[in-house]
């Protein structure tokens, strides 16, 4: 009798106000910069410099700021947004495709050299991007790829984390019997992948895609070294250029545009994460789910 009551109390304990209050403090810290940003994108540049950070002040200029962000310097922000979208669609899309195919191949086929492939990929993950970025730049500059979209897209195509996640996911999610049945029906391996097994991998694929999109969208170091012309910049490098404009001789500060541009850069990803919550949260934990 007591054991039953104890076990339910461990699995379904009462809500704690103290714990909730402590966590709410951390929540406030998490939200502080975002709230600060949302307040300050509504200000004109003079008001930004003269009013307290966590209070509204001056005329409400959010819409003017958005218009100016998109029209400033012949609409370069629009160009950066287009570049970012290009790098994300091709780079993250390609990364998801390659990781899905390779993770699936490693999980469901026993071929010679399979262990070697896995060892090489794991070993390479331990090597930090630091060691790779500058040599990659030099190599790409020899190949004539620097200052082109390909210089950003090609390195974005590899996601070892994505491969690992699909590998673990496919091992559990795809029964061998299903593939055997399709083979008996005379389907080729690629057709089996496209028509039978791919849809079973969807939660894993959405997770990999989302994380690939985030890392491509947020990419800064690689475009910084690869690109020399603003016309190829993604949003991240462009925003920092606007920010750096405020420093030095001939400074032209555009703080209000940096803030508005920052907000516009964040919004699409936050919306994607919120809308796709159900997928990526199940995809992340599915790797280690026990039957």
């Amino acid at each position, binding site marked *: 009798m007591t054991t039953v009551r104890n076990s339910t109390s461990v699995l379904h*304990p009462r809500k704690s106000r103290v*714990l909730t209050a402590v966590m709410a403090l951390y929540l406030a810290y998490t939200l502080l910069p975002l709230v600060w940003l949302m307040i300050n994108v509504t200000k004109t540049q003079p008001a930004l410099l003269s009013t307290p950070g966590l209070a509204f002040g001056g005329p409400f200029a959010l819409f003017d700021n958005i218009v100016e962000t998109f029209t400033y310097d012949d609409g370069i922000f629009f160009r950066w947004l287009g570049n970012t979208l290009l790098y994300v669609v091709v780079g993250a899309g390609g990364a998801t495709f*390659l990781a899905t195919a390779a993770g699936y191949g490693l999980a469901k086929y*026993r071929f010679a050299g399979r262990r070697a492939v896995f060892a090489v990929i794991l070993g390479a993950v331990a090597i930090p991007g*630091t*060691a790779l970025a500058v040599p990659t730049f030099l190599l790409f500059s020899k190949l004539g790829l620097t200052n082109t979209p390909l210089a950003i897209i090609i390195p974005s195509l590899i996601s070892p984390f994505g491969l690992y996640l699909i590998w673990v996911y496919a091992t559990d999610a795809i029964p061998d019997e299903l593939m055997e049945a399709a083979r008996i029906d005379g389907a080729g391996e690629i057709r089996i992948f496209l028509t039978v097994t791919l849809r079973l991998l969807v939660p894993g694929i959405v997770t990999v895609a989302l994380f690939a999109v985030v890392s491509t969208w*947020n990419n800064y170091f690689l475009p910084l070294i690869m690109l020399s012309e603003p016309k190829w910049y993604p949003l*991240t490098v462009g925003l920092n250029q606007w920010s750096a404009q405020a420093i030095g001789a001939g400074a032209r500060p555009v703080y209000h545009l940096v803030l508005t541009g920052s907000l516009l850069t*964040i919004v699409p990803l936050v919306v994607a994460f919120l809308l796709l919550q159900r997928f990526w949260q199940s995809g992340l934990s599915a790797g280690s789910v026990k039957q």
Partner: protein
Amino acid sequence: MTSTAAPPAARRRRGHGGRGWIFVAPFLLVFALTFLAPIGYAIGLSLFREQAFFGGTAFVGLDNYALVLADAKFWESFLRVLAFLAVQVPIMLLLALVAALAIDSARLHAAGFFRIVIFLPYAVPGVVAALMWGFIYGDHFGLAADLNRLLGQDLVQPFSGSWMLASIGNIVTWEFVGYNMLIFYSALKVIPNEQFEAAAIDGAGAFRTILSIKLPAIRGAVVIATIFSIIGSFQLFNEPNILRSLAPNVIGTYYTPNMYAYNLSFGGQQYNYSATVAIVMGVITAIIAYVVQLRGARKGM
């Protein structure tokens, strides 16, 4: 039906196994171009040196490595990120762990809301995070300026030499607590319920359950998160590079090893030496990651 089909299926699987290469080959091809080729190229570069007067390069063997290992700038930047990670990584992972345990405990009101909001900063680009915090730290119109005005003295100076590392640490912590929380939370979710029931029968309370069941169960996730955090700290670049334009006197060209390698290449055209710095950092990082993994695995046994 399945039992009669089993023997041919086993034979078939071996026959079909080789076709796995169709799926793996495209990944490996791009992987070779973006990982293996640059590593090989970097090793090649590190063995040569630019000739000052005659142009071209000359083979110098391991001379560049000897120079890096005796380079005071390199060690200063290395010790700085070492100090950074010794403080920042434990704080970040502890916060993430507490958050994950709290959200998993079922004692929290609106746990789902907490989970998504704490994760949210991960979706904010590092550049934007650094820009936002940079503004907040600022003495023009930042919160630091507001706070100092409130206090009537310049107490809070996030851009000063003694504050800077902590200021950067705050940005990195803000960005990645949620990501690590999610790793821990995912690991907590898959602990079988029977273990908790057994603990309850033994009369274990909430803290006892955390110590004897939850923490051991997510050890693997903690080791992985630690390794990734260490690698991330050694690669520190974005945040200091962006804050540099706000505090150029505090953040120099070799504030972190990654900034040093970058500035050697793009400020000084010393490509061979830059590649050597990058390789040395890569080797050190790989060794430390390997040691952490070994220790984590041994404790697990």
